[in-house]
């Protein structure tokens, strides 16, 4: 069965090593925070100038001077630290963050990321810290649905949307499968309610079955998702 947003978030959370310093992008990736194991010492960075960010503020806790990158009021944890924007992005650009999790419009087979701009003529471009994260974090994990609502694959041979970063994505967590970008190509690590063969048919990029399991992967879930016939972009 395909994964819900929270199941995707939980899967990502499980893959983050204890003690890691992590930045969670605006939107869906924020859900990962809810699934980080207590006591693992995972420290969240928010690019607007804070390390060891706590959960979202509730009720009277909300302080307009204490917000995350999505401008949502958050909280401090013991051991939090504040710093200014140049220091915050120096931290990011300098390769000190272990992992960032970002949403995406498209990811290419070689790990190019497109997540800031649809390229449509009437769209107002807004990049925020996405390019800095893509270029700076040690590992970039993308969290997205594998297909658009219209059934168009978001894992593509070449991104058609404007790029955020070149060759920067390490893993892609989707509702139907987890992919690892390697020198050997796009390795399918997990599948959820879909077979490796069906994935191979529905995606316009060559896939490699996961290396530690040479035999074709059995479908883990029960039912196949209906899924529109994918258009190739």
């Amino acid at each position, binding site marked *: 069965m395909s994964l819900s947003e929270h199941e995707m978030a939980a899967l990502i959370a499980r893959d983050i090593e204890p003690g890691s310093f992590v930045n969670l992008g605006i939107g869906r990736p924020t859900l990962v925070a809810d699934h980080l194991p207590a006591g693992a010492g995972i420290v969240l960075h*928010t*690019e*607007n*100038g*804070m390390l060891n960010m706590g959960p979202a503020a509730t009720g009277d806790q909300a*302080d*307009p*001077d*204490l*917000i*995350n990158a999505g*401008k949502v009021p958050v909280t*401090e944890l013991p051991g939090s630290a*504040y*710093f*200014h*924007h*140049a220091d*915050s*992005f*120096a931290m*990011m*650009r300098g390769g000190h963050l272990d992992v960032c999790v970002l949403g995406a419009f498209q990811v290419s087979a070689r790990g*190019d990321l497109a997540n800031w*701009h649809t390229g449509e003529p*009437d769209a*107002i*471009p*807004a*990049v*925020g*810290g*996405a*390019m*800095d994260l893509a*270029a*700076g974090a040690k590992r970039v994990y993308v969290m997205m649905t594998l297909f658009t609502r219209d059934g168009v694959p978001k894992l593509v041979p070449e991104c058609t949307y*404007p*790029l*955020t*970063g*070149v060759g920067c994505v390490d893993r892609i967590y989707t509702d139907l499968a987890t992919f690892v970008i390697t020198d050997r190509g796009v390795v399918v690590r997990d599948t959820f309610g879909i077979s490796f063969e069906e994935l191979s048919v529905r995606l316009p990029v060559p896939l490699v079955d996961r290396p530690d399991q040479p035999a074709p992967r059995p479908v883990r879930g029960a039912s196949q998702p209906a899924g529109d016939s994918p258009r190739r972009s």
Partner: protein
Amino acid sequence: MTAARICDSPAEAVAGIEDGSTILIGGFGLAGMPVRLIDALIDQGATDLTVVSNNAGNGDTGLAALLAKGRVRKMICSFPRQPDSWVFDGLYRAGKIELEVVPQGNLAERIRAAGAGIGAFYCPTGVGTPLAEGKETRDIDGRTYVLEYPIRGDVALIGAHRSDRMGNLVYRKTARNFGPVMATAGELVVAQVSEVVETGQLDPEVIVTPSIYVDRVVAV
């Protein structure tokens, strides 16, 4: 530059800002946004401005109000599009404002470079993307970098928490954001603070913006 002047009003704090100025405006969303200084700038009347700020205004107040008055010729920012950026969105779609989108970290580092006397720097952010198009690149130790230039302000308007009478500043939580770097890069630096305390009341270990960078302070 001499020690900061403590002003009696936001109007006094923004006096003399000229048409055509480049104005660095602190804040990330509303956190650290010097709203009272922007209101005073609207009253002061300077126009044909270039504004450098992370966002392009929220709701109908502050920077959004300045935009609505038609005073801003160009925005340089990382993230104009927000749920409540309707003022900017309207101007942009009507072709009434120029926009330069800069990755957030490049914005911060380019402003820092201006304040730090760095002529230009090679930055890995944005390589291969539309935001690096036409920019010079260079391979260093096997990685490709884009050459980025400083962003200076004729004026910096920032929000801080406390100032002493010399102009030493401390900030509060994530409202710190762009204030400290913008304070280094403006020719005229004006800080809106919650409180002015006597000199000596701020611990020298915790001052974030030393007085050398600050020209005018107003408590609001």
